[in-house]
């Protein structure tokens, strides 16, 4: 029996070894591994196929994931033996990944920093250390339908007046709605236009750690512009459901749209009527989040022995004019790097959103927005305000006071991290 058992096991093991040895994935010594999502990954592959010697002596391998969530899940679970050297991801991953020891900092020269707007580094920093290179700008801007509105509104009130005057005659379903970015990220410009920025800046460009919005003023503006008594006046819906379709169908005159979906609007014949959301007063337009996607350096680069090379790839490819122009030729998002943003090859759509961001934007600081020292993060509390006031009919000022307390506590909680 023993003889038979060992004979059987020997045959089985032989087959197994043959199969097993054939699949031994290991990172080569001179290989830099980059992880990206389902659109950025293939576009990086195309870019690197056209020119591969961004870091002489090193081969760059790109692994694409099925979607952004799958990529986030993978980087969350990555270990020293499985993780990438660089991951192209969202700016709001930085605080969490750095906290969990998954990201490594990098240092840029003054000239390398000068290639970017200083606010873009806020997005990719945690506890005053920079963890990546800004790759492309993600922002929203307000578009208006020129078939309905002849000229750009100057104040928030202009838009509300137009809506009230034309609601019935033009069968309008809303006045302004959020088509891109959701009721927290995308709607920040509406909060801001009515007087509630997520945080404020000092004149020297640093974040003011003690200032938060005035809930009485903001609540009063909400009452004035968005409510009819206790009920919503219909100008600004509490959800983004149907906004894009309604705008494209001509039943909403103003919409906040994302730069990633510009082609859809262009295909429907819309031109570049982009602008910030006008403020309660003409001189204070609403600031949209002008966030960036980043190429982030991981701690695994050091364990793979390619940290210096990975940093070179970040600086010389992801952070250079030539690299971003080459990459954005395929990716078609507004490049973060200044030289690339002004390059002739960048499309009107990319430039239009970039111009709107320059007019009124606020950097997305993950340490504040993701924090929950105030019991809820910005992302959870912001849409809850719209629901409470516009759907549930709760008092706009009382709810604004709760919102202000949450945001203020989140700002205080993040004070040491920014």
């Amino acid at each position, binding site marked *: 029996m023993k003889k038979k058992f060992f004979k059987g096991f020997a045959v089985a093991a032989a087959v197994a070894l043959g199969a097993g040895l054939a699949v031994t994935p290991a990172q080569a010594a001179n290989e830099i591994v980059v992880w990206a999502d389902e659109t950025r990954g293939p576009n990086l592959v195309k870019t690197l196929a056209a020119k591969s010697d961004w870091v002489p*002596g090193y081969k760059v391998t790109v692994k694409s994931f099925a979607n952004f969530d799958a990529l986030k899940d993978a980087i969350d679970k990555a270990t020293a033996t499985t993780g990438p050297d660089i991951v192209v991801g969202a700016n709001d991953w930085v605080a969490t990944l750095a906290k*969990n020891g998954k990201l490594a900092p990098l240092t840029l020269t003054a000239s390398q920093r000068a290639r970017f707007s200083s606010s873009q580094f806020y997005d990719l920093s945690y506890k005053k250390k920079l963890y990546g290179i800004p790759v492309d700008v993600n922002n929203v801007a307000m578009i208006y339908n020129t078939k309905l509105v002849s000229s750009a509104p100057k104040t928030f009130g202009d838009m509300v007046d137009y809506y009230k005057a034309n609601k019935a005659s033009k069968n309008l379903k809303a006045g302004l709605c959020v088509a891109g970015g959701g009721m927290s990220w995308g709607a920040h410009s509406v909060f801001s236009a009515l007087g509630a920025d997520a945080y404020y800046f000092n004149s020297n460009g640093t974040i003011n750690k003690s200032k938060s919005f005035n809930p009485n003023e903001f609540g009063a503006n909400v009452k004035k512009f968005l409510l009819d008594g206790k009920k919503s006046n219909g100008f600004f819906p509490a959800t983004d*459901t149907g906004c894009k379709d309604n705008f494209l169908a001509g039943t909403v005159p103003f919409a906040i749209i994302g730069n990633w979906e510009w082609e859809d609007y262009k295909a429907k014949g819309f031109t570049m009527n982009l602008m910030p959301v006008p403020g309660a007063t003409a001189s204070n337009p609403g600031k949209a989040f002008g966030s960036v996607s980043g190429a982030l350096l991981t701690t695994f680069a050091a364990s793979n022995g390619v940290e210096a090379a990975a940093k070179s790839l970040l600086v010389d490819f992801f952070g250079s004019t030539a690299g971003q122009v080459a990459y954005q030729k395929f990716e078609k998002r507004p490049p973060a790097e200044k030289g690339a943003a002004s390059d002739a090859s960048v499309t009107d759509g990319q430039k239009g959103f970039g111009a709107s961001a320059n007019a009124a934007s606020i950097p997305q600081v993950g340490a504040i927005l993701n924090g929950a020292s105030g019991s809820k993060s910005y992302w959870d509390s912001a849409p809850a305000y719209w629901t409470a006031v516009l759907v549930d009919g709760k008092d706009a000022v009382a709810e604004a006071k709760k919102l202000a307390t949450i945001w203020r506590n989140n700002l205080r909680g993040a004070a040491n991290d920014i």
Partner: protein
Amino acid sequence: MITAIIRGKVALAIKLVLVAIVTAVLLTLSQSAFAKGEYAIAGFLFIAILLINFTYFSKRTVPLKFFLPGILLLTAFVLTPILYTLVMSTFNYKTGNYISKEEAIGRIQALALEPDENASVFDIVVGEYQGSPAILVSDINNNAYFISTPDQRFPVSNAAITADEYGVARSAPEFTPLESGDISSSKAAKERYYFDGTYFIAVENLNAGAVFRQSLEYLPQQDVFRSLITGDIYRDNNNGNYANENDKAEILEPGWRDPTWFSNYIRLFNDERVRNPLISVFIWTMVFATLTVLTQFSFGLLLALALNKPIRGRRIYRSILVLPYAMPSVMSILIWGGMFNTEFGAINEILGRDIAWFQDPTFARAAVILVNLWLGFPYFYLVSSGALQAIPSELLEAAAIDGANARQIFRKVTLPLLLQILSPLLIASFAFNFNNFNLIYLLTGGGPRNQLDGEIAGATDILISYTYQIAFGNNLQDLGLASAISVLIFFLVASISLYGVRKSKVLESFS
């Protein structure tokens, strides 16, 4: 003929091939797991290979040949997750405390680099100088060049260097540059090069070096970090972080997964931010599971009774009634979600109302029960129909002869017998709905919850969706606490099921 073939050498060959294939797959997975440092998985797979080979090539273990696949799968996919969850519930496994202590110490040391006042970064060439790792540094702003080794700094005159068009030195006497492809993995890339005694130059990338000083040092004997700038001591706070002795709130990041034993369980009872929502969620979970079973069973039974009588078109009715069960539940839930939409939903259209179904706690709970009734009644209709057929007609006839009316027959004969037959299914349904994550997650997301008042649990959150909310619901995850709640759910469901099983005495037939 076929039996003879299967029993002969052909059978042995087939067995050999099948076992070889299984062994090959498992060995490949084991090797891959080993290469990725997952030693427990690799070990389990290797033991499985040995067991499979021993079992199927030995005559001593005939019964095990039937049980082994089940035992292995049960171990891998039931016992191991339960044990892992149990272990994780005793750790402070949360955002900021993901990695091991050794990794955390390494990361803290790597992060404790403080740039000089000017955040100086120089162009460098990495190589060797007089047999030692060295960098050739170009201080272009000051038009100065030097070579740094880990211990010394050697000035190099401008005349001695060969510079490129930007003024960056590419070579110098006695300095041997490394090839670009060799730098990253070389010892030279990891060295700290002498700058001025306090600060050093670290290789930042293949062409640049940055000036830093170490701000924290780790003292392994005492297991503490000491600030090289303020002298502060950071000690292990037994909660997965090094904390400043003088200010316990000041901790070094990242932290590590540290065993905190029962602290997550204690939080369930002591921390009111956890306890209060947990109590309300538990009550709703019980109500939800009970109401679901009652409504589904009642409606299913009602239909089964109605269609138990010979009526015209009974087959068609029966087929139609099974349809909701045949539809994938995910699709059904999403469709119902759309039907309950406040603005565009069919239900509000029919009612001619503007009910915000998912914004109001009562309406949302009603919607959840209603949708679950739709999803579950066909199952109870089917099993009740079967059970009704199984009740001997003599009993019903005897009751009728004794003068019982239809209602009495149902209450005194049919229902008790039905409950006896269906008790295991009712208990199983209760246990299933106690953990019916899909319905809650897809229909209401656990909401509505009043975020501005700091509510963590939503009105329709059941224990499992609340656990998910804690574990993965936002950027700050607390997997340790979520594991503790999961363990609690496990014991709750197990206790309720066991109690129900004992009460209904359904296992007696197996004894």
